[in-house]
């Protein structure tokens, strides 16, 4: 038993400070991302979520240039970009995607400039890579309380907005008929999303941030259709993936080829992706079985999944 524990948790795992911080940060980010992710998937705004966390590059580089803390760069840029996206976007999904793309491309152009200026000014090679691929193990102790506070605030606002937002996400027409300001609600959600992705892309990196937002939520929505249950499940899935990823990444310092450890983002992303594939396959098998039970030869083989199952 002792050797098993020893093999899974490399020596020093429980006494390492970076690991403790990473565990707390991972939990917070997974919970916030899971809750917001369910709405993101329901509203079909994965691209916006991905774009907002991609803009971590812009936030990080502009904060470095302006000399303020990275968190303010991330949050400020995120909120501004979310506003612009909502301003340009319309309700049609196609044109909304194009608007998101245009805003993203312009912002990436700016971040190219900032990164360039940043690297020519102090010629540190690591900046680009750190901003792009940031790692859970590099979270500094000072940001964790702030992170927890902002994450809790995001969840509180989401709780207040929960009912109208759910109605607006499932049926915008119905919500509008009931007198809910759908457009304003959309903007509020996007700002919330910007805040959450800013937090997560700063702490876990811009690769992991969209994966944790969309992956656990999509997995959870395959398993249950009740929104609150899906949110809880998404949070649990995200937390499990993050924690297992941390353990594996800590172990990987003993693995080939370099002995410098594999990136923690890689493990977490792989776990999230594998879980999604598993539930996808399970759903596929159960649909096939129920179809066979129905004995309906007219049933089209390539029928789209029923609405809401995705």
């Amino acid at each position, binding site marked *: 038993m002792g050797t098993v524990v020893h093999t899974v948790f490399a020596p020093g795992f429980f006494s390492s400070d970076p690991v403790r911080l990473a565990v707390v940060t991972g939990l917070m980010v997974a919970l916030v991302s899971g809750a917001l992710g369910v709405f993101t998937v329901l509203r079909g705004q994965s691209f916006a979520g991905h774009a907002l966390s991609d803009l971590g590059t812009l936030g990080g580089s502009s904060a470095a240039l302006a000399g303020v803390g990275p968190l303010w760069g991330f949050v400020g840029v995120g909120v501004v970009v979310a506003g612009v996206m909502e301003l340009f976007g319309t309700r049609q999904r196609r044109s909304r995607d194009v608007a998101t793309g245009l805003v993203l491309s312009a912002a990436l152009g700016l971040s190219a400039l900032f990164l*360039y200026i940043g690297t020519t000014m102090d010629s540190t090679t690591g900046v680009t890579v750190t901003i792009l691929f940031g790692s859970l193990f590099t979270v500094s102790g000072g940001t964790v309380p702030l992170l927890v506070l902002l994450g809790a605030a995001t969840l509180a606002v989401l709780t207040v907005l929960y009912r109208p937002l759910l109605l607006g996400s499932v049926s915008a027409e119905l919500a509008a008929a009931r007198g809910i300001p759908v457009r304003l609600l959309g903007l509020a959600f996007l700002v919330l999303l910007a805040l959450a992705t800013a937090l997560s892309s700063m702490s876990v990196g811009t690769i992991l941030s969209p994966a944790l937002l969309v992956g656990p939520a999509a997995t959870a929505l395959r398993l249950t259709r009740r929104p609150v249950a899906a949110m809880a499940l998404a949070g649990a899935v995200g937390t499990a993936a993050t924690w297992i990823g941390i353990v594996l990444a800590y172990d990987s310092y003993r693995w080939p080829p370099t002995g410098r450890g594999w990136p923690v983002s890689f493990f977490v992303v792989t776990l999230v992706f594998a879980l999604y594939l598993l539930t996808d396959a399970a759903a596929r098998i159960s649909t096939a079985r129920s179809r066979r039970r129905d004995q309906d030869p007219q049933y089209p083989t390539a029928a789209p999944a029923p609405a809401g199952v995705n």
Partner: protein
Amino acid sequence: MFASYLLNAWIVAGIVAVVAAVVGFFVVLRGSTFVAHAVPQSAFAGAAGAGLLGAGTLLGLGVFSLGAALGIGWLGRRGRHDVVTALAVAMLIGTGSLFLSWSTEYAPEIYALLFGEVLGVSGDEIGVTALLGALCLVAVAVLYRPLLLASVAPEVAAARGMRVHRLETAFLVVVALAGTTAVPVVGALLMFSLMVGPSAAARCLTSRPLRAMALAVVIALGCVWGAIAASYQTDWPIGCYVATFAGGSYLLAQLLRWAVQLRHSTSSPVAAAGGGA
């Protein structure tokens, strides 16, 4: 500015602009901007990793962008498209970061792959780019009619017995090919700007497909050549100019359309109702 060592840059940027605009027309028409962003980005991750492992940048690009396209096409049959795209790109970039952590290279190479290094293109690279670009254009020409129908009215296309999903996968492969063509010379981010900006601008100005495509090519050429000139003058990275010009062209086109609509609606309300649709 037109010195011989810069000639390669002008040529290669022109090729990439034409390919990006032609493919980008369908990207904007189908609203698959996310895919256009995701495929080059995962290609970048593959190239960064594979190139540094010594497997050849182009090979890494090709494998990763094809993997992204086929994966999104396959998983997108059942799942929601945007969800699958987000997951696939995260997975591929994660793998790329694993490769990167094994290598000991420095950031400038990665920066070049991300934001482009059009000024350092060699003669050999022009040949490869031209070949891949021509392949892309031929593929679009072959797919043109069915893809146009499937993009505008997928139900009609399905009713006519077209395999919409297979067509979609073919389109994704074309996007992947375009990405492989462009990323080594203009960078992953710039390719995305070039695909979306000019085509969205062209669609504001005309609704006829071929005319919009031609217009997009002209705008894209203007963007890249203008960006090379501006980058040469100011010594700032070319990526930021291309993104600015592409976004600016869209804003201009949108303003122009509003102005035209406004004039129409003041002169004759009937024409405005037709033109605004």
